C-alpha cells in the first residue's frame, strides 16, 4: 500500500501546484497579455497593441482569429474553456449573449470611457445595464454604394427608399449594367438589404427591443422584418441582381460598382479600404466614381452596428494580475492611447475628448453624414439567435425558401436562443 499512498501524495501535490500556477494571484503584476484579435485589424489597431506594449512594459501576445471565420473560430475556441486576457469581438448583443457575458466577462461599467461615450452603450456592448465592451471604432454604417456615372448617365438620382431601388432597377434593365450587385458567395452581404428595409422602423431600437422581449414576432406577416424579406425577394424576382448573385463575393461587388459594371451594392462602410484598393489607393478617383447613401423601406435611414475591430472585452480568467492588466489595456485604448488610434485610422471618434482628424475623403464623410442623419441600430444587433439570418437570406436569394418560411425559421431560432439565455419575456 505504501507505493499507492506515495502516488496519491505526488498526484495531490501535482494538482495543488498546477492550481497555484493557474491562479497566480500572488500580487506580482502581469508581464504578459494574450489578445485574441481579428486578422483584419487595421494598421491603426495593430499599432495600438504595439504602443501599449511599449508604454506598459507588458508583453502582448496576439492570437490571430481569421476574419473569414471570425465568429465560428472565436466561439469554438471559447467553447473549449480557453480564455484570452483581451477578446476582440462584436459588441452586438445577439453575438454577446452566446458568450454568456454575465458569467464570463469582467464588468467594465465603472471605467471612465463609458460615461464619455454618450448613449453608445445603451444599444451596444452591454446587457441589462452592465457594460462589458470597450468600443473604440466608429460603427459600421450599412447603406448603398452607387456608381455615380452609371446612375447619372441614365438620368437617375441615388436611391432613398426601396421603391427607388425598384424604379432604378427597371430603368437600367437591358443596359448591360447590373442594377444591384448581390454577393451570395460571401453569404453575409445577403442580410444587408432586408436589414436596411427595417431600419426606418427601428428608431431607438424600438422594433429590435420588441422582438428581443417577445412582444413582436419576426414572422408577423405585417411586421417590418417579413416585409423586408418580401421586398428582397421582390428585387430578386424583378431581375435586379447580377446573374451570378448566388456565387459572387463582396469584393467582386465593390470592384463592379467602382468599375461601373454594376450601379449599386448594399454593403457597410468598413468596405472602404477594399474600395480604395480597387481605386489604386486614389481617394479622389474613388470619390469621383462612387457615392454612398442611406436607404430604407420608405425613407433614407441607414443601419449601423459597431464593428468587432477595435471592440475589446476583458474575460474573467481567474488570474487577478492578468485581469488587472486587461483593464489597464482597455484604459489605455480608450484613454491616453485613444487620440493616436483615431488619428492613425483616421476614424471618427466615439469617445468624448478626442478631436476629429481632418483628412477624410468625401466618401468617408458620407458615412458619417448617414450616421448623423438618424441611422438606427441594425435590428439584428440586440436579439439573441439572430446569427442564423445569413443562412435564411442566402436561401432566399437562391430561391430555396419563401419570405414567410424564412421569417418563421428566424422566429424559431430567436425563441430557441432567448430561452437558452434565460431572457425576460420568454
Amino acid at each position, binding site marked *: 500500500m505504501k507505493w499507492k499512498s506515495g502516488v496519491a501524495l505526488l498526484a495531490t501535490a501535482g494538482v495543488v501546484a498546477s492550481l497555484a500556477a493557474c491562479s497566480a494571484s500572488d500580487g506580482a503584476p502581469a508581464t504578459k497579455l494574450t489578445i485574441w484579435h481579428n486578422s483584419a485589424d487595421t494598421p491603426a489597431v495593430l499599432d495600438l497593441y504595439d504602443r501599449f506594449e511599449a508604454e506598459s512594459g507588458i508583453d502582448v501576445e496576439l492570437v490571430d482569429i481569421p476574419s473569414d471565420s471570425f465568429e465560428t473560430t472565436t466561439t469554438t475556441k471559447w467553447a473549449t474553456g480557453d480564455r484570452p486576457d483581451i477578446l476582440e469581438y462584436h459588441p452586438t448583443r445577439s453575438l454577446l449573449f452566446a458568450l454568456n457575458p454575465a458569467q464570463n466577462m469582467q464588468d467594465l461599467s465603472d471605467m471612465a470611457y463609458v460615461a464619455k461615450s454618450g448613449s453608445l452603450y445603451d444599444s451596444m456592448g452591454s446587457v441589462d445595464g452592465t457594460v462589458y465592451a470597450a468600443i473604440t471604432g466608429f460603427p459600421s454604417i450599412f447603406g448603398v454604394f452607387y456608381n455615380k456615372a452609371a446612375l447619372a448617365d441614365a438620368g437617375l438620382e441615388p436611391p432613398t427608399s426601396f421603391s427607388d431601388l425598384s424604379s432604378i432597377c427597371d430603368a437600367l434593365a437591358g443596359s448591360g449594367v447590373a442594377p444591384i450587385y448581390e454577393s451570395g458567395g460571401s453569404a453575409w452581404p445577403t442580410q444587408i438589404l432586408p436589414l436596411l428595409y427595417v431600419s426606418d422602423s427601428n428608431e431607438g431600437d424600438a422594433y429590435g427591443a420588441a422582438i428581443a422581449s417577445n412582444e413582436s414576432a419576426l414572422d408577423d406577416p405585417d411586421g417590418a422584418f417579413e416585409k423586408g424579406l418580401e421586398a428582397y425577394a421582390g428585387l430578386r424576382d424583378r431581375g435586379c441582381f447580377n446573374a451570378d448573385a448566388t*456565387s459572387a463575393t463582396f469584393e467582386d461587388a465593390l470592384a463592379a460598382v467602382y468599375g461601373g459594371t454594376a450601379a449599386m451594392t448594399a454593403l457597410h462602410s468598413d468596405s472602404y479600404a477594399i474600395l480604395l484598393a480597387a481605386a489604386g489607393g486614389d481617394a479622389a478617383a474613388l470619390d469621383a466614381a462612387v457615392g454612398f447613401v442611406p436607404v430604407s423601406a420608405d425613407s433614407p435611414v441607414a443601419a449601423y452596428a459597431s464593428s468587432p475591430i477595435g471592440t475589446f472585452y476583458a474575460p474573467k480568467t481567474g488570474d487577478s494580475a492578468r485581469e488587472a492588466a486587461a483593464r489597464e489595456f482597455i484604459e489605455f485604448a480608450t484613454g491616453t492611447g485613444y487620440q493616436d488610434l483615431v488619428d492613425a485610422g483616421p476614424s471618427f471618434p466615439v469617445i468624448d475628448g478626442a478631436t476629429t482628424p481632418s483628412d477624410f475623403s468625401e466618401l468617408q464623410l458620407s458615412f458619417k453624414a448617414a450616421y448623423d442623419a438618424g441611422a438606427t441600430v441594425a435590428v439584428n444587433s440586440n436579439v439573441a439567435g439572430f446569427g442564423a439570418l445569413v443562412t435564411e437570406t442566402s436561401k432566399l436569394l437562391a430561391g430555396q425558401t419563401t419570405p414567410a418560411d424564412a421569417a418563421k425559421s428566424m422566429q424559431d431560432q430567436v425563441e430557441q436562443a432567448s430561452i437558452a439565455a434565460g431572457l425576460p419575456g420568454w
Partner: protein
Amino acid sequence: MSSAPHRSRRAGHPARREPHRTPLRPRWIGFALPSLVLVFVFFVLPFVLNVPFAFSSWSGYNQDVRFIGFSNFALLWERGILQNSIGITVAYAVIAMTVQNVVSMSLALALRRTTRVNSVFRSVFFLPVLISPLAAGYIWRAIMSADGPLNGAIGLFLPGFDHAWLGDPTSALVIVAFVDGWKWSGIATLVYIAGLNSIPASILEAAAIDGATAWQRFWCISFPLLAPAFTFNVVTTLIGALSAYDVVASTTGGGPGVSTVTLNLAAVQQFGLSYFGTASALSLTVTVLVILTAVPLVAWLRRREVAA
C-alpha cells in the same frame, strides 16, 4: 471471422482453403500496443466522450448542460437541417467516389507500365493530393466563377457565355464533388496500378492468344482480380467524401443557399451559432453514417473478393 466458412460455401468453393490465421502470441502484443494506445487515446476516447454532448442542451448561452434525449436531433429535423445535409452528404459522397474510381482506374490502366514517361505522368496526377484542400477549393472557385477562365474558354466558342457554375444548386454540388474526386484520385490511382501489376502477365497473354479483346481482358480478368484494390478504394473514397468539409467550405461555403451544406459544414455552422449540442448531434450523425455505410459495404465487397 466466424462467418468465413459460410462465405466459402456460398461462393461454391466447399474445398477452398480458409486464409491461414496465426493466433496472436503474447509477445507480439508489445508491437501492437503503441497503435492500440494511439487509437484509443486519439480516437476511441474523444469519440466516446463526445457522444453524450449530442444528447445535451450544451450551448454558449448558459452554463447549464442537461441531458435532453433526442431533442437536438428532433430540432434539426424540424428545421430541415438534418435531412437536407444527410441528402447532400450522401449525394456528394456517391459522386465523389464514382469520379475518383472511374478516373483513377482509367489513369491506372493508362499508366500501368513503369516507364520513364509514365513515372512523370504518375507524379503529375499525384500532385493534387499534395495541395492543401483549401487552396484547391479556392483555385477551383476562381476557375468556376462567372468571369473566370472556364467561362472565358467557353466564351471563345459561345460569345457572352457567363454561367455561374457555383451559383446553380445542382451544378454547384456536382462540381464540388468533382473537385473532391480530382483532389484525391492520385492515391486511388497508385493503389490500382499496384493491383494491376500484381496480376500475372501470363494470364493476360493467354487470354490474348485465345482471342480475347482488350475490353474482355479487362472486364473478365483484370477487374475481378483487382477486387482487393477496388474494395479499398471504394470504401476509403466513400468514407472520405462522407466526412467532406474543407473542399466544400473553400469552394462554395455551403451555397448557393444551402445546396452544398454537408453534415460537417452544418455542424460548423451550428457551432458558430454557439449551439454545441446540435453541432455534436450532427457530428455523431456523420460517424453513424460512416459506420452504417462502411461496415455493410466492406462485408459485401469482401465477399465479392472471395467469390473472385
